[in-house]
């Protein structure tokens, strides 16, 4: 009974249940149309990875009590920071990639610093960065290229030392899936097994109480804003190498889907509670639904409605489970 209770109060319980439900649903409805094939599985894992790489870092930030709405714009900006210097100025890709990551860390630091210093909601601060980053990406790209797209990366990639870790498909699974799995393991471990992880919970649970016992709340939050910006850049790098091109609109709304995945995964919107594994399962659900609909006869445009319904159901379920967690004795 005690063991059962322990399982019941895990934050990812709702998400795991939902993931099984979604899988069974599409296995029945679309199993004969390819959902259950290896290719079908690889496909939804790939879509899941796109959400998951962001969602795991967004989950940590959310547990620490903050949001980052600027990661979608960060994807667009990072893509251009890599593609334009390589295709137009002849930089080696590794240099452009390093510059993009450095830039994202600076943006993340500024986001975090502003939130900590002004004590304004991170929703507002990062909404401003969302527009700033997207606007600058648009303006500078058009000024430099005259287009809103940068393409032709493919010709410059071979032999580059950094490109290798952002491309390919070891064991038949795209590199993004491996990054997703790796980040889940590492960040999940950090959250539950290190003092820093304890501080993440504390920063979101009650920042003042945490500070009073000596938790460096500001440092924890700023470092997590840097992490979310960096994972956005990771995704942008993988995509720009994979497709050889990028667009100023790349990553639009990705920030909201990442938040949705984290919330479906049992992460508390107001901080202090959640799990990395939950966010990963949430991302997997988004992947399965997105690809699953594709295999049915249903028009894929219904995806957003399904997402909305799932989000609502997840919040209600998680609310109930959390109530149980606090009641269980």
């Amino acid at each position, binding site marked *: 009974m*005690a063991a059962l209770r*322990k399982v019941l*109060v895990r934050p990812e319980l709702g998400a795991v249940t939902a993931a099984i439900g979604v899988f069974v649903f599409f296995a029945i409805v679309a199993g004969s149309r390819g959902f259950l094939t290896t290719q079908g599985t690889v496909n939804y894992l790939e879509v899941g990875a796109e959400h998951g790489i962001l969602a795991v870092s967004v989950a940590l930030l959310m547990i620490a009590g903050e949001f980052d709405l600027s990661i979608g714009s960060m994807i667009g900006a990072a893509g251009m920071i890599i593609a334009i210097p390589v295709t137009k100025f002849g930089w080696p890709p590794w240099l452009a990639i390093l510059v993009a990551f450095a830039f994202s860390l600076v943006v993340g630091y500024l986001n975090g610093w502003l939130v900590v210093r002004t004590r304004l909601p991170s929703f507002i601060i990062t909404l401003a960065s969302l527009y700033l980053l997207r606007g600058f990406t648009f303006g500078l790209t058009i000024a430099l290229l005259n287009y809103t797209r940068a393409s032709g990366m493919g010709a410059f990639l071979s032999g580059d030392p950094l490109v290798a870790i952002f491309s390919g498909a070891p064991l038949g699974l795209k590199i993004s899936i491996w990054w997703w799995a790796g980040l889940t393991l590492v960040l999940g471990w950090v959250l539950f*097994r*290190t*003092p820093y*992880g*304890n*501080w993440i*919970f*504390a920063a979101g*649970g*009650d920042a*003042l*109480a*945490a*500070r*009073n*016992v*000596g*938790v460096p709340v500001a440092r924890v939050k700023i470092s997590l804003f840097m992490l979310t910006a960096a994972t956005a850049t990771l995704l942008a790098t993988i995509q720009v190498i994979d497709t050889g091109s990028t667009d100023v609109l790349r990553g639009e709304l990705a920030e909201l889907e990442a938040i949705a995945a984290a919330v479906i995964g049992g992460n*508390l919107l107001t901080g*202090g*509670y959640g799990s990395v594994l939950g966010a990963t399962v949430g991302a997997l659900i988004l992947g399965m639904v997105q690809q699953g609909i594709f295999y049915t006869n249903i028009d894929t445009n219904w995806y957003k409605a399904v997402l909305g319904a799932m989000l609502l159901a997840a919040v209600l379920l998680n609310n109930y489970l*959390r109530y149980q*967690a*606090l*009641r*269980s*004795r």
Partner: protein
Amino acid sequence: MAIIELKDVTKSFGRVNALRGISIKIDAGEVHCLLGDNGAGKSTLIKILSGVHKPTQGQYEFDGKPVELSSPREALDMGIATVFQDLAMLPLMSITRNFFLGREPKKALGPVEVFDSGKASKITNEELNKIGIEIRDPDQAVGTLSGGERQAVAIARAVYFGARVLILDEPTSALGVKEAAVVLKYIVQAKTKGIGVIFITHNVHHAWAVGDTFTVLNRGSSYGTFKKAELTREKLLQMMAGGEELEELAVELDLIAKRDPSEVGKLEHRVAEELDRETHPKQ
């Protein structure tokens, strides 16, 4: 010698004078009760003691040497542990994680240091058992504990980390009679370990039950510090009610007397009854 001494301390927030000319001493192995009405400045005083605020004027001495604390962590490292009124624990975090928050035990795992959760759970269990609390599972959320149990965990934590001064801001105010009694017991336990306890309360009966020394604040000023032998419960109650209120009452009585003399007797009787009930509650 006193562990902590404040000398003529003043604290202003802009134009609000929360404290004026406060001097106070905390000795080892005593329970020093800090009493006063809402807004008297009790929380402000202990926030100065615990490093949250710096005094606007006056001196803070620790072991006889002047110090300037710039964070609660600094105070904590010196052995001044505080259980704040508005925030004791993080309800969604486990008891163990709360217990060790900010001072996590670490073990080496290859090249990296990780949170030693096994050790943390074991110590938490032991320490809580020591003060007589049975926790079924130290990994359950603190939110599942009662108010008294939370106070107990916070006190056990302070004692475990070697506090020399333990500051408790209204630990009994939100509790029922039984739970309050249990917390009072922990206070005495801490005192017998040689810890200097600062116990803030509105409740004269709680203070009287465990206190050795009493300081009463009123609107930022001190009525003075008294040993238990110099006081009676009634005197303490009177000081807490504050001269202010008594004056107001006198004016009120006067007004009524002018309007309707027959009412005065009834009112006086009622006030006497009220005071009596406060002093000798039927529990």
